[in-house]
């Protein structure tokens, strides 16, 4: 049974990705494009030269973190749709610290990163608290928190950080994650040290979940709230903690954008979509930290490669969004895929 389950957790994402790419090819054929040219362009766009490889890794970085943010909360049975807002506040806080404080590199950079994580954590704390104390469903609260984050952050950029400008000044060099070394190595891409932080965060999540009492309790609450309570665990505390840590991961994703990729924050007309893509990442990665890293890399590749598709094969970049949406559907409908695969296996015997 266990080995069967492990096989399924591995097979369903792989199967879903292939199915998604297959349907993508069909869509290209129907729209009159050549799917081989289309996917070749996607491959070139993601791995064509050192520059695109650098950009692919850069794009993967925040996706790992938002994926972790959603996967971590999932382990406690919570659905964190609020990664989107947590990214924005994390981004804002890290850039704010990056601009406002004057300190040597060794203090400034960690402080700015920490600010991002704390801001994201606070944004996760609110829905966690409401869920723990009042039983309010976290999905709706986090959605609302997303919009509050968007509008409040835009307002702060316009009227506190700048004088009605749409973009802040750049952060001090002492708070920057940008790296001349990485950038030169990849033909001036925007690749920055953030990827190391993202990978480290994945290890942290693995460590918390698998190797600590806190992680054990968080998982237990996710499996069965009532049994955990009966066993003497504080369910409410664990729910809040889970949301705060999840928010912290998402806040870090924002800090990666603020301190690494852009070096500033701009007024946003809509969401970054990092949080929503994180849902896809967590789902495909089966809420496992290493699965999340791989899934983030896949989506980073698809999204970066998509940029080459219009010029290389005439295919609109949105094809990749359609493919990602389909992959989510397939993974989410695993009930039916599981059933089909089992059926198939049985008949094979």
């Amino acid at each position, binding site marked *: 049974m266990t080995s069967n389950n492990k096989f399924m957790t591995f097979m369903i994402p792989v199967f879903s990705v292939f199915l998604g790419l297959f349907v993508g090819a069909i869509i290209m054929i129907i729209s009159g494009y050549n799917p081989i040219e289309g996917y070749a362009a996607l491959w070139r766009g993601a791995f064509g030269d050192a520059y695109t490889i650098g950009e692919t890794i850069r794009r993967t970085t925040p996706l790992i973190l938002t994926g972790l943010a959603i996967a971590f909360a999932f382990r406690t049975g919570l659905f964190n749709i609020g990664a989107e807002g947590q990214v924005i506040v994390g981004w804002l806080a890290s850039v704010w610290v990056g601009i406002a404080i004057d300190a040597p590199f060794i203090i400034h950079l960690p402080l700015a990163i920490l600010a991002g994580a704390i801001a994201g954590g606070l944004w996760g704390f609110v829905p966690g608290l409401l869920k723990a104390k009042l039983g309010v469903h976290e*999905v709706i609260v986090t959605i609302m928190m997303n919009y509050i984050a968007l509008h409040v952050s835009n307002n702060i950029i316009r009227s506190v950080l700048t004088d009605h400008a749409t973009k802040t000044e750049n952060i001090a060099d002492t708070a920057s994650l940008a790296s001349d070394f990485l950038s030169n190595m990849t033909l001036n891409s925007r690749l920055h040290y953030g990827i190391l932080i993202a990978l480290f965060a994945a290890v942290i999540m693995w460590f918390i979940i698998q190797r600590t009492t806190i992680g054990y309790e968080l998982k237990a609450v996710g499996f069965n709230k009532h049994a955990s309570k009966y066993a003497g665990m504080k369910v409410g505390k664990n729910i809040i903690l889970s949301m705060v840590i999840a928010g912290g991961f998402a806040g870090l994703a924002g800090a990666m954008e603020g301190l690494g990729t852009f070096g500033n924050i701009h007024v946003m007309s809509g969401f970054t979509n990092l949080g929503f893509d994180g849902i896809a990442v967590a789902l495909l990665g089966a809420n496992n930290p290493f699965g999340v890293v791989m899934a983030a890399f896949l989506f980073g590749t698809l999204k970066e490669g998509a940029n080459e598709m219009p010029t290389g094969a005439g295919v609109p970049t949105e094809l990749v*969004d359609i493919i990602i949406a389909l992959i989510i559907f397939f993974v989410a409908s695993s009930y039916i895929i599981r059933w089909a695969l089992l059926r198939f296996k049985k008949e094979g015997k």
Partner: protein
Amino acid sequence: MIDLLQSLIPTVLFFSAPLILTALGGVFSERSGVINIGLEGLMVMGAFVGIVFTLTFQDSLGSITPWIAVGVAGIVGGIFAIIHAVASVSFKADQTVSGVAINMLALGVGVYLTKQWYGKGQTDMVDGFFRTDIPILHKIPVIGPIFFEGVYATSYVAIIIAVVAWYVLYKTAFGLRLRAVGEHPMAADTNGISVSKIRYTAVILSGVLGGLGGSVFALTIVSNFSHSTIVGQGFMALAAVIFGKWHPLGAMGAAIFFGFAQSLSISGSSIPFLDGIPQIYLLIAPYVLTILALAGLIGRADAPAANGQPYIKGSR
């Protein structure tokens, strides 16, 4: 004061019509026990279809085009919602995840087709609905000029549909069954009600209403389709569903209130007693109020009992 109302009320109604329609869709879906985060995507689909239809046929059909376009958008929205129904009812997928996927899919498909058909990321502008005077009613003294002069007819269509939705949900056998399925699917099943049939119908209805809402939004407020035509209106409609406590008329009231907040954030400075309030508070008001409502600070909002749970026959 009358001048003020006369400028404010049509604007409020104008902003709230799409929210009312979409929120009603949310009410149907959620009352049957299917969470619908995908309202945003359904609106995107509606907006896309509404604009494309109007662009294609406005020369041959003339001024009636927007009305037909809205109808077609409703139908396509309903068909599109079947994906959500299949995933969340038949395949027992996590309904929130499926809704998120609907949002991504709608935007992807909409912009993909726009680029393919028009060769650019956004469509041309269309002639959508225009402000009109409602016949006869606008002649009523005082009330007439405030409510019925220079308004969009769509606003009143939305309000009428809300009343119809209330009637359907609370006064018909179908409505009773739908609510029963949302509260206790097993009990409903035992009484011979097909849970999946009701849930399919409800989700498709939410698609129709979401499609109507999206197309009305596009044809009255934005006039073209691009990736930024619908940004958050679907989620605001979802907020209206909850703030209105899953009741059609409540959702309508909440939608009108949110429409009010939206129109104030755009034209707030012209109103004497509100000009001191920074725009930011009006922008976030709908969301903050929804959280407060959920937290029980503004009356308790309880979701239908079986909301979000796939029904698997024979399981407890």
